[in-house]
Structures are given as structure tokens and as C-alpha cells.
């Protein structure tokens, strides 16, 4: 029997089997009350603006990896601005600092919901350690120029075309600064460079790496009757590289473009129609929290790749607070850091949904028990937008596998910024000055 007919019959059976929806009649006063609600800037909006103010660019964070939560950390953990100043000498365990007391920034737990204010009280579980420790702070420093890096990437990924330079004015704590982006577009291929934060990064994507099967059924919509949409595509068998081939290719590209890595450091995540690999930028044998990554689409071609042309340079050895004490910092967003890719491999979070907004009830207080803490290096930014890797803890709530990362460096080493004030409604318009550099 015709497949479409069978499906139509099945849906009709479904509809007929359901009881009629006896929905209550909603009074129009709901709309009147709703329209009396006062809009408030969301915390997420404020933190997004803070990232812009420090020159942090999301360009290097590829949200194009469907179904993979790895990149979510950088985007979901907004960065605090801070002035990192260290004592003239910082011997092991020394916490000498020139900083004063951090401002009281308690604003309750971090709420991603716009408008409503929710207080979250994080509580350390009994199993968390009360031991202090030590670690190192690293600064990410460019190890090449944007021009040289872009030329290398063009060669490695066989990209033709010229780069366009775009310059924007961005307001930072130090005043108005110019931020330059390098962009290359060649057909479906797009390479986007960012030279902000003192960390040169690139983001490559290729729309041709994905194909959809031939359309086998089209429909029109009531809104646009003269436009047809495909409602059914023929399945496409993915032509992905084997694990061995993927690691070899990743290794060749990563190493060839400047990342010191080995096959053992490359992690693969395979899905039905895509493949993803990442390798951490390491220093002293451990992950700094930054990674390079590469993904393949169902054609077997590389669909995206992201990397940083940086060296991690140690700037200080510091003492760290315990996991238990780090949990106390969870009520202050300014201590948040970005987590490394390794933390999010199996987390049940999908980055593409991070823009979702849900309205909780105003005034709710939620207590969340933190049951697990692992030492890690988190990524934070200073007031000049420079990127640092700092000792942190990846903290997990009960029944959750998604980590929130908080800095565990002792008080006094990192000066916290003043709590963010409401942003202005109008964002800065880019200058849009362009030059072609080939």
C-alpha cells in the first residue's frame, strides 16, 4: 500500500482516537494583565553585553555542531570582567595581592530567565572536599599573526578567495576600542577570524559538507500558498570517515596549524550522520580549558573547524580554595568560568537551545545540592579582554551531568568587577569599514 496513504490513515486514526480537547475559555483579561507587565533587562542580556564590552567575540565558538554540547561551555558560562594583578613575586602558595575586598556582588543564583528574579541557593554536599590546594594561572598569548595564520589555514583547508577586514567600535572598560575581524567567504565556505582578547582564533564552516536527500513530497502552507516546502526527503546514507581516518585527519590539520597534540589527546564523538573530534590545548601536561575541534558532515567533508593560535604562558602559581568553599562562590556570577570541551562530552545539553527563555515565578528560592566537584582549568577574561586559564572546579548538581565551572583561586588574587549595571537599550552599530586583503 502507498506509504503516504498509510501515514495519512495513521494520523487520521490518531486524531480520531484522541478525546476532544475540552479547553477552558480564557478571559481576555489575561491579555490586559500581561500587557501591564514591566519589562526588565535579563541577566543574560547584561552578561552578554559584558562579554562584548571586554572585546570577547563569540565568533570562535562554533554553535554549528548539531547535537553536540561541547562548545556550550564557552557560551553558556558568561565571563566576568576582572583586573588580574599579581604581587611582585608570587612564590608557591603565596596569596599576596594588591587588591582590595571584592565588592558585594551577591545577586542570587545565576538565572537565565528574562525578567523574573530568582534566588538560587547552592549547597555543598557532604562528599565534597574541604582540602585547599594550589595551581597555576596561564595567559593565552598569540603565537603568530592573523595574516600568517589565515594563509596557513587557506593552504591547509584548500580555500580560495580573499579575506575581508571588518572593523567595529566596541565599548570596553578602557573606552572605545576598535575590534577587527577577518572574514573569508568562498561559496559555502566561511572562515572567520577574531583577533580580540589577545587570542587569535578562527572558525571555519562549509555548508556543502551537509546534504539533504532528494525531496519526495512537497506541501504548501496556508500563510504562503504560492510557496512549496519539502515535507519529506529521501534518507541520505552518511559517508563519514572511520575513527582511524578521522583521527589522522584531525591530527594532520591540528598539528599542521600549530596545535601540539597526539592521537591519544584527540577525542571522537560519532553520531548517526556526523562526526566530531576535539583536542585540548595543553600545558604542563594538562588541559588549559581551550580546545581545537573539527566536525564532519554526512558527505564526509569537514563541516566546521575551530582553533586558537596561542601559547599558554604561566603567569603565576597560586593557592586554591576547597571544593566546598568554591560552592559558596556559585551565588556570585563573577566567579564563573568557561569549562573545557572534555567536561561536556556526555552532558545532556544542546547548545542550539541556549537562547530559550522560560519565565519562572518571581521570588522563587531554589536550593540546589552540589554533589560532585572535579579540578579543572577554567577560562576567564580580564578587563582588557585578555584570556586566562585559571584553577577552577567543575561542579555538578544532584542528578545532573552538566558542569558549571567556578574559579577556585584564593581571594585577593583576582579582583572582581563592580556588579554590572543595566545596559543601554541601543547596541553599538558596527562601522563596517572593509578592506580586501589577499
Amino acid at each position, binding site marked *: 500500500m502507498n506509504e503516504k496513504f498509510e501515514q495519512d490513515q*495513521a494520523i487520521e486514526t490518531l486524531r480520531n482516537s484522541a478525546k476532544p480537547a475540552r*479547553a477552558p475559555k*480564557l478571559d481576555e483579561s489575561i491579555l490586559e494583565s*500581561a500587557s*501591564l507587565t514591566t519589562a526588565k533587562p535579563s541577566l543574560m542580556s547584561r552578561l552578554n553585553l559584558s562579554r562584548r564590552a571586554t572585546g570577547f567575540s563569540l565568533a570562535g565558538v562554533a554553535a554549528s555542531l548539531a547535537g553536540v554540547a561541547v562548545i556550550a561551555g564557552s557560551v553558556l558560562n558568561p565571563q566576568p570582567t576582572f583586573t588580574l594583578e599579581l604581587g611582585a613575586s608570587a612564590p608557591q602558595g603565596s596569596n599576596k595581592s594588591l587588591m582590595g575586598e571584592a565588592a558585594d556582588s551577591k545577586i542570587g543564583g545565576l538565572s*537565565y530567565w528574562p525578567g523574573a528574579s530568582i534566588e538560587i541557593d547552592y549547597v555543598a554536599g557532604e562528599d565534597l572536599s574541604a582540602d585547599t590546594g594550589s595551581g597555576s594561572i596561564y595567559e593565552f598569548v598569540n603565537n603568530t599573526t592573523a595574516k600568517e595564520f589565515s594563509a596557513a589555514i587557506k593552504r591547509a583547508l584548500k580555500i580560495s578567495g580573499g579575506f575581508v577586514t571588518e572593523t567595529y567600535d566596541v565599548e570596553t572598560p578602557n573606552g572605545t576600542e576598535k575590534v577587527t575581524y577577518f572574514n573569508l567567504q568562498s561559496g559555502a565556505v566561511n572562515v572567520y577570524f577574531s583577533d580580540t582578547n589577545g587570542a587569535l582564533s578562527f572558525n571555519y564552516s562549509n555548508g556543502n559538507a551537509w546534504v539533504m536527500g532528494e525531496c519526495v513530497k512537497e506541501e504548501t502552507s496556508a500563510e504562503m500558498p504560492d510557496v512549496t516546502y519539502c*515535507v519529506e526527503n529521501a534518507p541520505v546514507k552518511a559517508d563519514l570517515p572511520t575513527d582511524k581516518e578521522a583521527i589522522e585527519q584531525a591530527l594532520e590539520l591540528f598539528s599542521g596549524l600549530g596545535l601540539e597534540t597526539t592521537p591519544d589527546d584527540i577525542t571522537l564523538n560519532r553520531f548517526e550522520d556526523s562526526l566530531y573530534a576535539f583536542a585540548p590545548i595543553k600545558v604542563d601536561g594538562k588541559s588549559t580549558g581551550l580546545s581545537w575541534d573539527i566536525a564532519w558532515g554526512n558527505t564526509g567533508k569537514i563541516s566546521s573547524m575551530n582553533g586558537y593560535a596561542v601559547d599558554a604562558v604561566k603567569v603565576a602559581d597560586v593557592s586554591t580554595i576547597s571544593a566546598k568553599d568554591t560552592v559558596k562562590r556559585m551565588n556570585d556570577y563573577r566567579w564563573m568560568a568557561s569549562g573545557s570541551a572534555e567536561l561536556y562530552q556526555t552532558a545532556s545539553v544542546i547548545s542550539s537551545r541556549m537562547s530559550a527563555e522560560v519565565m519562572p515565578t518571581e521570588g522563587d528560592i531554589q536550593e540546589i545540592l552540589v554533589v560532585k566537584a572535579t579540578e579543572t582549568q577554567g577560562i576567564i577574561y580580564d578587563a582588557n579582554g585578555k584570556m586566562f586559564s585559571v584553577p577552577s572546579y567543575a561542579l555538578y548538581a544532584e542528578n545532573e551531568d552538566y558542569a558549571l565551572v567556578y574559579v577556585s583561586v584564593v581571594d585577593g588574587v583576582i579582583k572582581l568587577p563592580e556588579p554590572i549595571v543595566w545596559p543601554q537599550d541601543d547596541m553599538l552599530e558596527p562601522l563596517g569599514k572593509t578592506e580586501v586583503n589577499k
Partner: protein
Amino acid sequence: MNREQFIATFREHLPAVSKFLVRRVARDEVDDLASEIFEIAWRKRDDFTEGSELAWLYRIGGFVIANHRRKEAKRGLWLPLLDVDATAPSAESLGLANVSVAEAWSKLKPSDRNILALSAFDGLSVTQLATTLEISANTASARLGRARKKFAEYLNSDLSD
């Protein structure tokens, strides 16, 4: 969009929102959740494009329901990213009288139930599905096609047992 325009625009969607909610939550929760949906719609009124209001309301509704269920389950607000697909109506909430239909429906993945419910019961077109689920029209059409196929397979398999 001013207050009068907002009320005039969204008045016609009150019944659809009520039906959307009653298929997914208890009847006595519909009023409160509807209020939340329209409060968010008011705050985000500048984001709506003309003609897409219902799809947007359903999108907001998905998250409102997900958050509501999270609170009900006392899981706290750890994650800002809630599984909207998990808000798809269950066989029970749809009142599926036919056992085979109910079993086939229950076998579907949450994402398949979600898109199929939005299409079959809430009457969304592919364009509206794309807006509600924040995906491209092509992806919406592909997902809907897969969900329909899966449901038919499960149903026909069950009927032939």
C-alpha cells in the same frame, strides 16, 4: 506594538493557546500557564513577525510547560536549557482511547511526539513548526516526515500483532 494592538492581535489566539495547554497539563493549570505565556509574549512583542504570532506562542508555551514541570518535579533550576520536546502530550493527556494507538504514540521519541502533536492536534503548518521549534523549514519538514513515518510503522506493526 502598543497595548491595544497587543490585545487586538492576540485575542484571537486565546482558544488555540488554551487547547494547546489542556493537551499537555492539568485543566486547572491552564489559566496560570496561559498568563505566563502572554506575559512573555508582551515582553517579546517586538520579536514577533506579522502572521507568526501563534507559532511563537506555542514556542513560548513549550518552555513555560517545561519549566512548570521542572518545578513540579522539584529538580530546581540548574539548567537553563529545558527539554521542550519532553512537554509533548502523552497518550494519557490526549485521552487516546484506542490501545494500539496509545501504544504506538508512547513508542515515539519525545521529539517525534512533539512535532507530530503540533502538526496533528495544534494544526501547525511546516512554516509554523519551523518558528515554534526554532529550526529551518526544511528541517521541520524532514522531522515531521520522519515522525509520521515512525508513528505509522508502530501503529501498523501493533495492529498486525
